[in-house]
């Protein structure tokens, strides 16, 4: 806390902005009991890929906070999915963000996604202030969600859970009854988690129209997963009902993003159509949805490099600080479906994709493993700030599993020119073997036009043999590092973040001057020292042991010459004689004996000491377990 106070003036702009953004959340739509919105945004990237982002928003004007608890308030479900609502009420969740992602978002080519997600599964939850035992609630929630989304979220335990101090602040309302406690945040990732139809199936069942009609009718698993990147998300948060924020609503955002790569499959052109990439066209809006729209980003079509069919219902231009965005909008409620036999958005390019050097966004990050061998290793992140004259304050979070024991003293933050960067604040929670991961959070100021290197080394732990997974040789994953910041420019965003609900608010409201950003780095795969579990190896080991024991003792017996020795005549020197004297000491009564006695007693005490040592070691072992 002292550190926080000391560096207060420096940090204030960042934190106050974060606080500001998280507190004044509102939506400006007409008040109803609950409403559903479905939107699809299609963005052709200059790198040749096409990004499709589905967003389904359900708003429920329901103030679910308070001492009574949500259990009594979340009862009569209409558009909000009951399966999720009940889980939420049971564990008193205030905010929940779950993403299941396959593939890696390429920041340097595609700029920033609408919702950044770590590869694999990522879950972070703010529990309500009234929850007493947060760990218990977290444990119950992860189990319930694992059943709900067919994901292995039940593998989240204390070894993968952390409570970050600086990252992952509430995205929704966090005032009044919704005021949060810092200890009520839980964050965990499962970087190995694979995502497939089995996760999509329960996810789409939460939608009010399921996949029968509306935008969700486009979900064809074979097409959705034949992409470079696909991400499913469920985001719950409380938001203000109106500008004055007297009442709260519950907002559920279900997002699905994919990045398809048309030039790779189709003669080098970026041609994209719903029929080809979702294997069907739209037949109409979801009757439950108040708003049902498809947006196509045609900003890059200044030179009419592609044709868009059919004619959009309207063309909208939004201007941000220094650039404008042009969108073709299809409103499914007004689109003449009866004339057109369904809506099949079709983009046709005149030329093949020209692969130019793309300008990466102003801020991006890469991370990789360094070092070699199976004993030590290191992690290095490169944080790029490409802004020519503005420095950038960022929060960098690193979550390292216990089996890669992080050495904090090796932590080094410097620019590529070699200038050391002093973190404005560092929060470090050391890990414990088999109990807790290592958590490092730092607030860094990245100098303008620079590359900052964050590096540290770790030691690879030996696992107990039952701790190895069945495919230990595949390697072990380290989850993404997370970069949180606030940008001043909206240029690199696919959609500039806006505190309102739905895509529309971000696409058409350009009043904001501060844009919160969260970026995930690559996950890392490392190999730990792994025993050979294969059968030949075990057979060889066993055979060798048997041979060593049998051969050794047989050889010993057959080659040793046994002779009779008279112990009393044996010389006083030598170990054998001393031992003989030791065993036969009752018979001897000389002054030498005293010395012997004292020696043996010394040995005894040493033995005792050894015993106590081994006991304490066992105790430690037990504690470790």
């Amino acid at each position, binding site marked *: 806390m002292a550190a926080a106070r000391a560096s207060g003036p420096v940090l204030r702009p960042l934190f106050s902005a974060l606080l500001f953004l998280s507190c004044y959340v509102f939506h400006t739509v007409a008040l109803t009991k609950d409403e559903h919105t479905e939107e699809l945004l299609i963005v052709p990237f200059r790198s040749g890929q096409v990004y499709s982002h589905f967003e389904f928003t359900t708003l429920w004007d329901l103030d679910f906070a308070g001492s009574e608890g949500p259990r009594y308030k979340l009862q009569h479900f209409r558009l909000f999915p009951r399966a999720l609502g009940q889980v939420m009420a049971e564990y008193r969740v205030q905010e929940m963000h779950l993403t299941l992602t396959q593939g890696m978002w390429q920041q340097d080519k595609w700029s920033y996604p609408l919702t950044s997600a770590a590869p694999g599964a990522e879950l972070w939850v703010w529990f309500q202030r009234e929850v007493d035992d947060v760990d218990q609630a977290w444990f119950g929630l992860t189990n319930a969600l*694992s059943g709900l989304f067919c994901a292995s979220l039940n593998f989240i335990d204390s070894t993968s859970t952390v409570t970050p101090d600086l990252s992952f602040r509430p995205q929704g309302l966090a005032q009044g009854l919704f005021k949060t406690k810092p200890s009520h945040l839980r964050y965990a990732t499962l970087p190995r988690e*694979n995502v497939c*139809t*089995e996760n999509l*199936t*329960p996810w789409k069942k939460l939608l009010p129209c399921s996949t029968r009609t509306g935008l969700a009718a486009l979900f064809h698993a*074979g097409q959705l997963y034949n992409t470079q990147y696909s991400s499913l998300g469920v985001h719950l948060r409380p938001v203000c009902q109106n500008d004055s924020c007297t009442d709260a609503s519950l907002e559920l955002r279900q997002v699905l993003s994919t990045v398809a790569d048309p030039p790779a499959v189709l003669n080098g052109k970026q041609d994209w159509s719903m029929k080809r990439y979702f294997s069907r066209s739209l037949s109409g809006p979801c009757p439950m949805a108040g708003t049902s729209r498809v947006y196509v980003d045609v900003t890059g079509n200044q030179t009419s490099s592609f044709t868009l069919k059919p004619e959009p219902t309207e063309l909208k231009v939004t201007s941000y600080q220094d650039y404008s965005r042009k969108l073709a909008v299809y409103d499914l409620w007004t689109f003449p479906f009866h004339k057109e036999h369904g809506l099949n958005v079709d983009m046709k390019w005149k030329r093949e994709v020209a692969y130019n050097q793309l300008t990466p966004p102003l801020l991006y990050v890469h991370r990789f493993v360094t070092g070699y061998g199976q004993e030590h290793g290191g992690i290095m992140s490169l944080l790029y700030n490409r802004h020519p004259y503005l420095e950038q304050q960022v929060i960098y979070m690193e979550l390292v599993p216990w089996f890669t024991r992080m050495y904090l003293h090796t932590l080094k933050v410097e620019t590529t020119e070699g200038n050391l960067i002093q973190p404005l604040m560092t929060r470090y929670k050391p890990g414990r073997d088999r109990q807790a991961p290592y958590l490092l959070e730092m607030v860094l100021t990245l100098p303008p036009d620079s590359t900052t290197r964050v590096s540290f080394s770790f030691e690879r732990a030996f696992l107990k043999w039952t701790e190895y997974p*069945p495919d230990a040789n595949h390697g072990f994953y380290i989850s993404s590092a997370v970069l949180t910041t606030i940008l001043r420019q909206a240029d690199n965003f696919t959609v500039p973040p806006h505190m309102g609900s739905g895509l529309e608010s971000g696409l058409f409201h350009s009043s904001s001057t501060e844009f919160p950003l969260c970026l995930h780095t690559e996950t890392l795969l490392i190999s730990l020292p792994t025993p050979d579990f294969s059968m030949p190896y075990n057979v060889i080991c066993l055979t060798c042991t048997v041979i060593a024991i049998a051969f050794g003792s047989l050889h010993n017996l057959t080659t040793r010459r046994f002779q009779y020795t008279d112990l009393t005549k044996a010389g006083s020197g030598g170990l054998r004689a001393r031992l003989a004297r030791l065993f036969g000491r009752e018979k001897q009564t000389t002054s030498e004996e005293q010395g012997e006695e004292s020696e043996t007693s010394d040995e005894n005490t040493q033995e005792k000491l050894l015993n106590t040592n081994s006991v304490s070691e066992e105790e430690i072992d037990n504690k470790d377990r």
Partner: protein
Amino acid sequence: MAARSACVWAGLVFEQVGGFFKSGHTNNWAVLVCTSRFWFNYRHIANTLSVYRSVKRLGIPDSQIILMLADDMACNPRNPRPATVFNNANQHINVYGDNVEVDYRGYEVTVENFIRVLTGRLPPSTPRSKRLLTDDRSNVLVYMTGHGGEGFLKFQDAEEISNVELADAFQQMWQKNRYHELLFMIDTCQAVSMYHKFYSPNVIGIGSAQVGEDSLSHHVDPSIGVYIIDRYTYYLLEFLETVTPDSKKTLADLFRVCPKRVCVSTPGVRTDLFTRDPNSVLITDFFGSVRNVEITRQTVTLQRNDTAQTCR
């Protein structure tokens, strides 16, 4: 008191219309297990999903199917057609489908979890979809596939379940009234050895190969580079595709599903623990969720009887 009178009333109804409840079960459950990890075991996932597809098509809902898959083949980076698992190189049937819910996957498929699911000894936090919530009126289908040997089946190349453990688990289920009838089916090498030790009543065992025999795979799909399905399950699926919820095919037909000339191995059957005649037991008693509905033209008058009678 209300409960008792309801019970008495039910008893009376049963006496009068007992013929309706011929097969004696009221609900169907399925536990489908693939115990193999790694891409070259694609065929085992395809086996399990073939049975999953069939039981789902015949009416068992996802909430009553426990599907355990030890690896992800559908979205495996090596799969040239993501989100699909086929039973055939001609890609006739996508057994993975567009609507699939896997309950235990990846590292969760362990001997411990399997036994816990069967015997119902799960931690209290376990969600409903991961529980086998059967009762004494449940017909349970247990299908397993993987790499096995005489008296054991390997789980994920890391541990194994023995036939004695399996037999004891079924006995526990019986003692805890967790099934009415149980159909155990296994496709692995020396499969019949897995049901030799069974001793619980009302259990049928079907195995794809005799002791000393290997259970063989059907054919390679060059586009994925590995064997696509095992022989026994391939013919089982071919047969089950002809079954409809109202079909009258019996277990005896199921026993003949893969004769030695196509299977190469010799499938085995064990019916000595089963009391009914397999010739009269419908396949849908295990693979479907079919209620017996018989329409009668007679009027059945149900008399209210308030005199105290104990149930049972």
